[in-house]
């Protein structure tokens, strides 16, 4: 929360003096949620860690194998390929929405007619049910009957094979991911733009700075913390991406678009090799924990900036 609202959280800054007076014995409020969190979140984490040290297939005898699953991972070509796909997919799915989302935020930050309605429409892709939109994208990607190839043919390009060819499948999926998640970047950056001071712009105007100069030397440095947050959140979500990939390609053609998450699904719930699947989950988990540490670091830094030092 205050990760994003570095300067927006005025009331947080005003809370310094009240800390001591109202601190004690709020535990009863937290206990029920704590029980739930331990049951459905912490327990699965611990259990997964334990299972990753076992040879465990559903319906078979399990036995302790130590780190053997992890050793197997290091030499599992399909896993390593999935890792590469995940990294490429994630990198592209961060950069494209970041650029487009920032541009959109700049446009939305002006006095537009029906701004609220437009923003509502703009946000629809990220709120819509992923499976539902994935089905429609599947139809649009169809090489013969899909509307995308028709549109491309109007400007003399194509026909492309989209998700039906190994060389274009990841790019096509990135297109969907970008379409879906650009709004989130837009919202984050828009929050940043709303918090900017006006004085530097007035002096820049007097100095005769061009629009590009104002963006490059004023806006961009000032919204950098927000861009960083967008990058991290986007990275985590792209790493985790499942619904779209599973619905449109299931990792295909072959395994050309298989990410870690999809491989994890196959191992655990198609082959029922839950021990090995847990090892994949743990590695995946570590990757994401590393990212969340960066996020926490940013959260703290932005809290210091707003002056309440928490």
């Amino acid at each position, binding site marked *: 929360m205050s990760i994003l609202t570095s300067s927006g959280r005025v009331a947080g800054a005003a809370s310094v003096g009240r800390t001591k007076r109202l601190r004690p014995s709020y535990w009863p409020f937290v206990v029920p*949620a704590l029980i739930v969190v331990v049951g459905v979140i912490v327990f699965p984490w611990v259990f997964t860690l334990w299972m990753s040290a076992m040879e465990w297939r559903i319906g078979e005898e399990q036995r302790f194998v130590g780190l053997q699953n992890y050793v197997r991972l290091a030499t599992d070509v399909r896993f390593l390929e999935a890792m590469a796909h995940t990294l490429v997919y994630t990198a592209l799915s961060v950069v494209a929405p970041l650029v487009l989302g920032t541009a959109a935020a700049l446009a939305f930050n002006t006095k537009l007619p029906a701004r609220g309605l437009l923003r509502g429409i703009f946000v629809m892709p990220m709120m819509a049910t992923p499976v539902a939109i994935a089905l429609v994208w599947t139809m649009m990607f169809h090489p013969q009957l899909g509307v995308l190839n028709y549109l491309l043919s109007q400007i003399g390009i194509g026909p492309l094979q989209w998700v039906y060819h190994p060389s274009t499948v990841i790019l096509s999926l990135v297109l969907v991911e970008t379409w879906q998640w650009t709004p989130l970047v837009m919202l984050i950056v828009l929050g940043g733009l709303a918090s900017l001071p006006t004085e530097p712009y007035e002096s820049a105007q007097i100095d005769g700075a061009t629009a590009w100069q104002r963006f490059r030397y004023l806006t961009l440095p000032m919204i950098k913390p927000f861009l960083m947050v967008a990058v991290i959140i986007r990275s985590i979500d792209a790493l985790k991406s499942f619904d779209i990939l599973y619905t449109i390609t299931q990792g295909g053609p072959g395994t050309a678009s298989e990410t870690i998450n999809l491989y994890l699904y196959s191992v655990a719930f198609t082959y029922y090799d839950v021990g090995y699947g847990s090892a994949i*989950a743990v590695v995946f988990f570590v990757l994401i924990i590393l990212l969340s540490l960066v996020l926490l670091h940013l959260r703290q830094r932005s809290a210091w900036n707003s002056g309440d030092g928490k």
Partner: protein
Amino acid sequence: MSRPLRKLLDKAGMAVCVLLLVSPALLFFLWMLSLSLKFEIDNGAYPPILIPERFAWKNYTTIFEGNSFLLYFWNSLIVTGAATLFALLVGVPAGYGIARMQAHKSAVVIMIARMTPGLSFLIPLFLLFQWLGLLGTLWPQIIIHLVVTVPIVIWIMIGYFETTPMELEEAAMVDGATRWQIFAKVALPIAKPGIVVAFILSVIFSWNNFVFGIVLASRETRTLPVAVYNMLSFEQVSWGPLAAAALVVTLPVLILTVAAQRQIVAGLTAGAVKGG
């Protein structure tokens, strides 16, 4: 160029810009609507037809006839409703407690939970549900949806209670009210807008969830996203009914998004939440 004219051009340029930016979303959902209202012959036509001469309303009636769609709708309603209500029940007080204790470290757990891929919760919980003999009922899905809804609610409520004014609560405390009285009579009424945001986002992300359902749902306990996905994989693929089903599944969410866009934007920018 005169100044007013330039201003006008600037504005027009911006408007065009935004239209360009909105059109991918707008055109997509229009095309979705178009697919859902066309007969197979129109959906297979080349060049594609946007507005057909005859509307295939039967696409919508078909999905409710053959596919126990109403049952799946009901399942979705139960799972999302129960998981959201329960999350509010435990999450709103928790958010209050964490905010008042200034226990910001505890929010780390919530944040990491939001970052964990849904699949890594699924393996252990799947085994647990199997062991408890719960598979085949709606309970596993209700329980596992808490993974999505509880963190959203706690996250949003911490942020909200941090911003609500303390003076009233302090005054009530001086008057000798207990903590629960203060929470119920003073803090809760002020926090209503925050609760609405938490409710809306929790509903949307639970409703949209797919990954838990494909593993945990049996034939009778499917939620809508799983049901629609199964239409794609197991039945003869005809685009019209498929698009109609997809639209029916996501329509409640789309309506909610446009109607409550202010709250949704507030909630999303507060925590950049996304479920499962």
